[in-house]
């Protein structure tokens, strides 16, 4: 057992022994998030309130230690990894829903509240919280705010940034600021818009006022089964172009079905190449008419069948196959690398072809389950990290897929964040001037250099370039710039 350091002692003095984790075995749990990379924190601190957060930041600053905020650790870009060591501030103990104002459709929550728990509380008031990342059973609102999380139902309602009205922020210098306003009427810059999606690099969010939305009176979920991915993606483009805005429009391919079906028995046919999940909601009459129109469009692309469910239990069953997809992939290979490219929706069919071509060339199985309606792809490359060279191959293929999205006029991340994983690719879409301007925004939030360091922006002092040789590879291959 190692002995405590002066900083650990100071953290214990600040928030109590029970709330500080520093023994090596315990730290292991915090080395990972949902990505391939890892980081080694020196100590974990678990604050119970805003004052604790302020005190922790002051201790970290005193010892010049990096600070990495963390929610549930479900992130998919390495955002919660303590790349330079230091203190991880885990927000999980701050998990109270402080208030729901049904009349004004808002809720005040602590950052450690689990997304699905907020959804359930909103439902008790006849309302909903729209952003619903697939990890919603575990992921926290604080993490959702940091990453500007999305989910299937953000097609109609927008991502987290469209649903956060105000928040309490502890900045890197330990100051507490309330920013934003119940109806966005606070005069001045949209500071909330700057903080949401800033990936924990400008401060720690300690309270969040979110917007709730009315629950639709009727919902219909349709499942369409296709014999080719082309047919399915053409059907997606046709639904989008028709002017109907479905509540959700998701695609699941054959590899995903193969993983999901034996575990979850969702009834997806194992020999289908792709299935689409399309949901329409709203007033009863709207759902009936729109459902019929969507069904008509789906039928134009020669589906094997189109199933439809309006009963909550049946709908839940259909969704289980989508939301449980990532977890089920372990059936096929021990490791996965999940990408998050986004492309203009008309480019979807071609880009999907390209994704399969790249995966084949790198001899990697690929599963696709994604937000087709948004053009937000999630190719999931499957591999076994124990096989020599497999990880490198996966990372190279991943870089090539991101490049494909960028060349189609898209972006490198739609909802998972740049984090550690994609920071070297940022110059593919942004010039030095773009990135310098972003950094100047970060600087406005105070001495943020030690705040979630090595995230979003390429390079960075002491961030260790070696781990990112794959990115350097791809950048050398394609040149530094594409769509800048």
């Amino acid at each position, binding site marked *: 057992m190692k002995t405590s350091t002066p900083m650990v002692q100071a953290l214990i003095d600040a928030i109590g022994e029970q709330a500080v984790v520093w023994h090596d075995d315990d730290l292991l749990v915090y080395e990972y998030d949902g990505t391939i990379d890892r980081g080694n924190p020196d100590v974990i601190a678990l604050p119970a309130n805003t004052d604790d957060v302020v005190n922790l930041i002051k201790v970290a600053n005193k010892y010049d230690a990096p600070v990495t905020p963390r929610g549930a650790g479900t992130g998919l870009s390495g955002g919660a990894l303590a790349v330079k060591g230091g203190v991880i501030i885990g927000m999980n103990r701050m998990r109270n829903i402080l208030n729901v104002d049904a*009349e004004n459709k808002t809720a005040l929550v602590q950052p450690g509240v689990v997304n699905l728990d907020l959804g359930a509380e909103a439902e008790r008031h006849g309302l909903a919280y729209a952003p619903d990342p697939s990890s919603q059973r575990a992921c926290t609102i604080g993490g959702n705010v940091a990453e500007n999380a*999305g989910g299937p139902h953000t097609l109609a309602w927008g991502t987290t940034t469209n649903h956060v009205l105000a928040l309490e922020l502890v900045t890197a210098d330990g100051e507490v600021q309330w920013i934003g306003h119940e109806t966005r009427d606070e005069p001045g810059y949209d500071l909330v818009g700057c903080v949401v999606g800033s990936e924990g690099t400008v401060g720690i969010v300690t309270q969040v006022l979110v917007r709730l939305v009315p629950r639709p009176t009727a919902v219909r979920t349709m499942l369409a089964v296709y014999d080719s991915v082309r047919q399915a993606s053409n059907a997606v483009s046709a639904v989008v172009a028709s002017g109907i805005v479905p509540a959700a429009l998701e695609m699941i391919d054959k590899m995903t079905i193969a993983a999901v079906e034996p575990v979850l028995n969702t009834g997806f046919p194992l020999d289908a190449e792709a299935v689409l999940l399309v949901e329409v909601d709203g007033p009863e009459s709207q759902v009936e008419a*729109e459902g019929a129109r969507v069904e008509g469009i789906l039928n134009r692309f020669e589906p094997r069948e189109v199933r439809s469910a309006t009963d909550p239990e049946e709908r839940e069953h259909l969704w289980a196959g989508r939301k449980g997809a990532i977890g089920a992939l372990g059936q096929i290979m021990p490791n996965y690398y999940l990408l998050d490219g986004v492309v203009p929706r008309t480019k979807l069919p071609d880009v999907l072809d390209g994704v399969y071509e790249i995966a084949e060339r790198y001899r990697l199985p690929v599963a696709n389950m994604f937000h087709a309606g948004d053009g937000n792809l999630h190719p999931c490359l499957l591999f076994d990290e124990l096989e020599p060279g497999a990880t490198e191959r996966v990372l190279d293929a991943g870089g090539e897929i991101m490049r494909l999205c960028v060349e189609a006029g898209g972006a490198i991340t*739609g909802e998972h964040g740049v984090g550690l994983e994609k920071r070297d690719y940022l110059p593919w879409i942004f*010039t030095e001037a773009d990135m310098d301007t972003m950094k100047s925004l970060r600087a406005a939030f105070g001495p943020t250099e030690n705040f979630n360091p090595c995230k*979003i922006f390429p390079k960075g002092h002491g961030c260790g370039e070696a781990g990112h040789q794959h990115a350097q590879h791809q950048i050398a291959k394609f040149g530094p710039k594409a769509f800048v």
Partner: protein
Amino acid sequence: MADAEAASASEIETLFDDVDTDTARLQRYEVDGRTPRAAIKADTSGEIEHAQAQATSQNVAVIPIGGRTMLDLGMPPSRYDLALDLTGLNRVVEYEPDDFTITVEAGMTLADLQRHLAVNGQFLPLDHPRFERATLGGICAVGRGGLRRNSFGGPRDWLIGMRMVKADGTPFKGGGRVVKNVSGYDLPKLFAGSLGTLGIIVELTFKLRPQPASDQIVAVNAPSLEAAMAAAHAAAQAAPFLNGCVVLSPDAAADARGLGAKILHDQPSLLLRANGLESAASEVLSQALNAVRQTGLDGPERTTSAIVETWQAVADLELQTDSRHVRLRVGLPPANLGTAQRILSQQLPDASSWIVAADSGLMFLEVASIDAETIDALRRQLGPLQGRLTVETAPTELKQTINVWGPAGRGARLMHNIKREFDPQSLLNPGRYVDGI
């Protein structure tokens, strides 16, 4: 030239290409009684970059100008040397209808954009007064949601990408052209609502919506403004999917009629709008009207097919204020509107031309005059209701004695930091924004 206040028209003429110093023409760029020494009409981003590089190096204070519909907003400028007219930047840069996104230059008017999109059955869901003149750059710089913000949000919610030019002339961008994107910081959101104080907006990319199959509007008269507001609140609660829910005082209703609105009389009026598929819009509207009836309103319902004209006339009321008068805007949680209205009408017995978006928590009213003490007192009373009061338009002499924005709150320190990072010499729209920015 350390003291730019001394920059004369002739000096400015030597600094820029194609600069206009004609005194008569410069009148159109007046802001709060202040006329610039010169104006430049930029047609390309390159011209803006060049102009800004020159302006910053020579300490010239610049106000970016769009359709000039909201120039009354904000404090009087502390300096104003050069008007940078962006209305020449009015092209569509890229439009792929099936992607439901469009990229346009900042000087394009909202009306032109809507006409462009209508061909493909699409639209940008923003209400803005005088949309024939208001430019998208200006609308985003002002950055506010309109009368239907409960359904539609504001410009921030539709912007997915932006190109800008920094005070020093450096071009940069944020976001992209895809509807979902978390690559890098969200600079378009920072610029939406920044009133031209951080840089010049050059190009914008929006996500779009399909035009609804059916759009329906209904007006009902009420015996009093209070009764109309109570009915509107009931309607918004009963029918949360209403697209719009606005109350007008008799004089506002009459003015809106003068501007082309149908179905409004010179009486307190409630205006409800619903859209979607025809059956759905009707369903929402009848839910709302049932709730309205239950509050005791029993006048006949009137409807019209001139929906866009009627709604736009109501939106235009925001800018109909007599230039000697004062228009106030109050934003607050919808449930507090009734209480706020009582406070305002007590303190301002002569208040007129009320417009209340009941589902959105937004209220506009006009007074012949007001003083700083009354404004402070109102802000103190509205504070506990989470109300924020802005003086939208007022004579310049009055604006010099009041704070039109109200206190900046605890975010002020961060806002000053941001301003310093983006415009360290404070040359863009100096003094007009919140907390002296």
